[in-house]
Every structure is written in structure tokens, then in C-alpha cells.
């Protein structure tokens, strides 16, 4: 899943010029079809490798693990990063601004953040995965266990023995 973003982007650019503006169809688990540019789809290492393997470009790609709402949001990210240039300072600043607003929206809806993180992981969209996991880490930072549970809606399931062990570790730490 580790792909050098610069090299990958350059390769994607080259590929796109070669193949013109080929369109690719992604289908959510609800059967809804999303037509995207190949450059956008190539943000996903999973799809990129399938395309490069000469896979089912014409038939489209069914994504049984991603629902429509999540896929739409993921495509929004891929369009921004796949279709737009990021050569000049201004272009990069615009992308950074997009990322910031994008993640702020997700941060406010933790259930959706979860879905997008899972999709980014499944589709191997490195930039998006880094963005969402960073957001999750930032949510954890500086919080007590109880506050973290509240932030993510996690139920308390530790036994008294777990608690004791954690306390023990904490005093060593």
C-alpha cells in the first residue's frame, strides 16, 4: 500500500495522457454506479493495480465493502487529488485547504469518519488514510480514557483485572 505519492502521481499523469480521459465506473455495495476519471480512480492503489493488470475496466469495479454515502465522499477526495494539479504553491495550498475542510467535516461525524477510514484502508488510498488516521489520533491525544470512550462512543468492557494491570503499567510509565 505504500506508494511514493510523487512518483505515483507522475505515473498517473503519464497514464492519463496516454489513455486520454478514460472513465471508470465504481459500484457501491448498494449497486449505485459512480463514473469517475481514471486519474481520480488511480488515487486508490487497489483500483490502480486492477486497471494496470488489464482488469475489468469496461465492466467497472464493484466495491462490496463500501456503501454509496461513503463512496461519494471518498470520490470527492479522489477527484480533488486526482484531477487537479499540485505543482504551484497556490495549487498545493488549495489542496491543503480542501483536506482541512474535508477532515473537519468528518471529524464532526465520527461514524462517517469510521466508514471513510475503512474505505480508505480497503481501497489503499494512502493520502486519505493518513488524513483520517491522523484525525483519529488527534482526537485521542490529551484525553482521559473516559473522554476517548465518549468521543468515539466506545463501551466500557474492561474487567477489574485489566484495570489493575493498566494501573500497574501506568505507575511504571
Amino acid at each position: 500500500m505504500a506508494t511514493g505519492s510523487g512518483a505515483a502521481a507522475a505515473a498517473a499523469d503519464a497514464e492519463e495522457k496516454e489513455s486520454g480521459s478514460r472513465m471508470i465506473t465504481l459500484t457501491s455495495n448498494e449497486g449505485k454506479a459512480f463514473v469517475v476519471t481514471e486519474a481520480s480512480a488511480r488515487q486508490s492503489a487497489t483500483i490502480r493495480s486492477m486497471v494496470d493488470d488489464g482488469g475489468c475496466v469496461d465492466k467497472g469495479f464493484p466495491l462490496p465493502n463500501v456503501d454509496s454515502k461513503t463512496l461519494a465522499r471518498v470520490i470527492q477526495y479522489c477527484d480533488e487529488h486526482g484531477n487537479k494539479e499540485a505543482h504551484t504553491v497556490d495549487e498545493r495550498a488549495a489542496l491543503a485547504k480542501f483536506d482541512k475542510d474535508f477532515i473537519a467535516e468528518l471529524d464532526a461525524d465520527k461514524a462517517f469518519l469510521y466508514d471513510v477510514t475503512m474505505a480508505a484502508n480497503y481501497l489503499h488510498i494512502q493520502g486519505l488514510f493518513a488524513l483520517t488516521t491522523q484525525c483519529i489520533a488527534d482526537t485521542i491525544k490529551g484525553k482521559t480514557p473516559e473522554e476517548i470512550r465518549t468521543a468515539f462512543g466506545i463501551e466500557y468492557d474492561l474487567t477489574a483485572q485489566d484495570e489493575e494491570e493498566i494501573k500497574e503499567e501506568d505507575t511504571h510509565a
Partner: protein
Amino acid sequence: MDGGHAGAWSDLPADVLITILETLDIGDLVRAGAVCQWWNTSSSYVRGLPHLLSRPRTPCLLYTTAAAADDPNVATLYSLTDHRSYTVKLPGPHVHRRWLGASHGWLATADDNAALHLVNPVTGQQISNLPPVTTVEPVRRLLDDGGAVVPGMYVVYPYDWTLRVEPLYLYLRVFLSSDPSSDVGGGGGGGCVVVLLHRSRPDGQISFARLGDPHWTWIRTPTGNELYVDVGFSADDGRMLYGIRRDSAIHEFDLGGEPALERTTILPAQDGTMRHTNYLVDAPWLGDGGCWLMVCRRMGAANLQAYAAWLADRSLPYDGVWNTHSIKMYRVDPAAGTTAAEINDLGGRHALFLGCNSSFGLAVVVRSITRTTRSSTRSTRQSARGTSAFTAWEMGAFIGSSLLRRGWIGRCPLGLYPALAAYSNRLE
């Protein structure tokens, strides 16, 4: 996936959760471990990964404790930033070995046969192909009248009399110019230089070798290779070696120069009392162009009254314990000529780690450090035997807070920055 989130966050796939937890500091990591069972399991796993130790600028102390005596090869790495202990297993029988230094994440030790080893306490790797002790210029095997080697003893030349030493005491300290694991594929003239301070009379001669060298190179100086107590390297390439002597003289040697090893005096001798244990600390924060901090630690009898009484009457009891009497710090700016200016403040938020490890200073977020309070000097083993300070057995850190753990039971701690990469022997 909407609506079905009960328990989702407490069920994050392991790879995703670990990716997130890996970015956290230890405090957040411990708290995240108290969220639920799955996060607890994952947090424990991440804390078990050695990568935490590899974070840049995470200084650690390495020590053994009596509690670890059950397994003699177990040591403890204590992270000063995380305030956390990590148990590490050292390769080979090391506990009875003498620890001679720590640089760039590697521990230098000598075994009972006077062979030197570099050990990476994090990866467990060991480098043992250092040149044999008998290639140190003044060191020879001790022969009996019949010409046979006397095991376990060495002779140090040249003297008007013969200094016989046990292997354990041949070496004073060991320093590395760089991390050996970054010493890859360099062909000849590899990067990592091992510098040895070895015993003689007077103490403190310098020899050095590059990894893979068959023998040690002895430094010949106009006024004798002696009295050195600490060394440093030029920060950029490690080519220049700086040696500081007991009399506070600082000399510079060009390890790659022509003619080789010409000596330049950075600072002439300041004090001839020879009761100092001096340290040379790279202190770029003190000024532009490579400033050094010279720390002069004056040693003396711990119990002065008993010592004075014993001097007058040798039949009186005296414990022979020495400790630190005073510590002075000087700013040495090579660009400003051969002077040293005494300073009372380390220049803000910095802590020094002195002792057996390669001396280093680092920025800390504690109140400013001055030498005015002697109590702030935590010398874990302040005593020294005899009249020569046993620098190798001491560790002191000048810090304004109690960052260091106290109450060492086992071996005196060494400060080091862990290194994770592996060393590959390019000669084999």
C-alpha cells in the same frame, strides 16, 4: 454501513488501530490502552515494539538492576522522554563485562579477555571484529621467565618500569564517531571511527581504529599522548577528533589529515592539579560555528576530615571514597581564539549527560539549569577509588528536575540515543 456502529470503534481492524496508536506519545498510548479491551491489547502490542525507542531525540538510560540478576544478560533501557522502562536482552555474557561507553545507540564493553565489543541494546546486534588489544601500541602480553604468555595479564610500555594490568583495567573509555549501522557500502575509509582511551602512566592515551581495521592507531603527539579524559568529534563529518585532558587542555586531531594526526591546540592547559575529570560537550546552542562546553568536575575525598586525619596518621581509618567537590562550566569557542569563558548557566533549557557515555547535551523542557545548586548534580556513583577518578563508573546528569531515577542498585547507567538500524560488515 450507516447505523451499524455499535462497537465499531472498539473493533477497529488491527492494522488500522496500530497505525493510529503508533503515532501517539507514550502517555496517550497508555490512556488509549485503558479505553477498552481491544485497544488495551493493541496498545500493549505497540508499546512492545522497539520503534518507540527509535524516535529521534529520545534519550535513554541503560542500566542493570539487582532485580534483573536472575538473568544476567538483561538490562533496562529507561526512556527519559517517555518515563518508561524497556527490558532489553544483551547478546552474550555482558553483565560481568565492563561498560566502557555508549555512543550513537551502541554500548561499548570489554570482556574478560580484553576483547572489545559494541552492542546495540535495542536490536541485540553485536560487533566484535574490533582490533585485538595487543595491537594497541604500548600493550604487550606479559611473558614469564620462560617466555610463555601469562594468561589474563598485560604489560603496558614504555616506562621506566613495567605496568602490569588485568584486562578489565586496560581500557578507560570508548567512543564512536558515528552510528556503525550507517556505515554501509562505504568501501575503504569507512565512516565509523572507534576511539579508545586506554590506561598507561599517566593515564589516558588515545588510539583509534575504523571498523574493520586490523590494528589500533596510536596518536603520537609532540608532548605525549596522555591525560585525555574525554573526546568529541566534529559535528558535520566526524573527521576531526577533539580530546580534552585532565589539565583542561583541548587538542584537535585530523583523523584523515596529511600529515596524519597533526595536533592543533584549541585550548592550552588551564589547571595542573590533575584532580579534574573533564567533559567536552558539543553545545551548538551556545553560539554559532560549533561551540563546545567544557565541564570541569573537581574530585576529592568525600570525607575531608577523615582524609586530612589519615594524611597525618596513616594508621587511622579512611574509606578512600571520593566524590565531586565542584563543577565549573566553560564555553569554548574555537573561532574566538584559545580562551575559555566560565559560564554559570547552560544557556537555557538544556540538560547534560556526562559520565561513561559519550557526553551529550539536549534541550529539555525544564527550568533553566545552573551550577549553583550542587544538589542538582545527580552523580549516581560519586565515589571513585584511588587518586584517579574512575570516570567510567560514573554517570551524572545536570538537570533542573528529577528526570533521572535515583537509587541505582546495579550497574551505573549510561545515557544513549537508541539506534535501530543493523550494522553490516562491509569487509565480509
